[in-house]
């Protein structure tokens, strides 16, 4: 079934997805979109972990991905709660407005 897809292709695909996420973090101002781009980067890494786990026929990689998903779910819950609180206090989630730490 899975014959003849070199691992290099998976590495390239993960690199491209990761970099799209990184560009999104740099180029967008909406904090929620930035957060979503971080999720995209996490997923690129997950995909690579699963690919190598299949390559080496070792289940540990897939268990790691399972744990990463649990941590990502916890992170999203807390992060979105923080963003909701920020929106309640400042009426915006624009990261160029939320720069009080700079001053």
């Amino acid at each position, binding site marked *: *079934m*899975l*014959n*003849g*897809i*070199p*691992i*290099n*292709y998976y*590495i390239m*695909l993960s*690199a*491209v*997805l990761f*970099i*799209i*996420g*990184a*560009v*999104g973090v*740099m*180029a*967008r*101002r*909406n904090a*929620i*979109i930035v957060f*979503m*781009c971080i*999720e*995209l980067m996490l*997923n690129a890494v*997950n*995909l690579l972990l*699963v*690919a190598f786990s*299949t390559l080496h026929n070792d*289940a*540990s990689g*897939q*268990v790691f*991905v*399972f*744990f990463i*998903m*649990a941590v990502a*779910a*916890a*992170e*999203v819950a*807390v992060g*979105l*709660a*923080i963003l*909701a609180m920020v*929106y*309640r206090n400042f009426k915006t*989630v*624009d990261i*160029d407005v939320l720069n009080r730490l700079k001053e």
Partner: protein
Amino acid sequence: MLGLTITQWLFGILSLMAIMFALMVVFTRSPVNSVLYLVLTFFCIAGHYLLLNAQFLAVVHIVVYAGAIMVLFLFIIMLMNLNTETEQQKHIIARIISGVIGGLLLFVMVGALKGAEQINLVQSGASQIGLVKNLGNVLFHEFLFPFEVASILLLAALVGAIMIGKREPIKN
């Protein structure tokens, strides 16, 4: 057809779709559309998991990411009533610079990984490691302690999210 097997066709199509939808996430102005494109990207990644014979992870990925996390994002965006008009864009120079930085990063990564050894993926007809039974065995034998710690982490996140999100009493 071009000497490619059906798996290779599926890999190519899924990869193209995943990259295209990921680009749309970054370049769409409306936040709601961004979320929907991210859901599509996650479905493509779940398809990749299926191709790699990791059925359990594919199902968990769809349930957790496309089902739970993205619904949270959608709810928050609708609560804040964000749309294209309220969406502020960065200065054009900042956007161009971030694009250039991303391109350079991609250049470096591709250059560094190009010379890597060409290894074909193992024949996964024999590989059963992605199935629920096998993963459960590994999870509850080798990784039992991390599993328990993860449950405590989820509990802490639950309590923390409720505490942070609670509306504080109005003080005069």
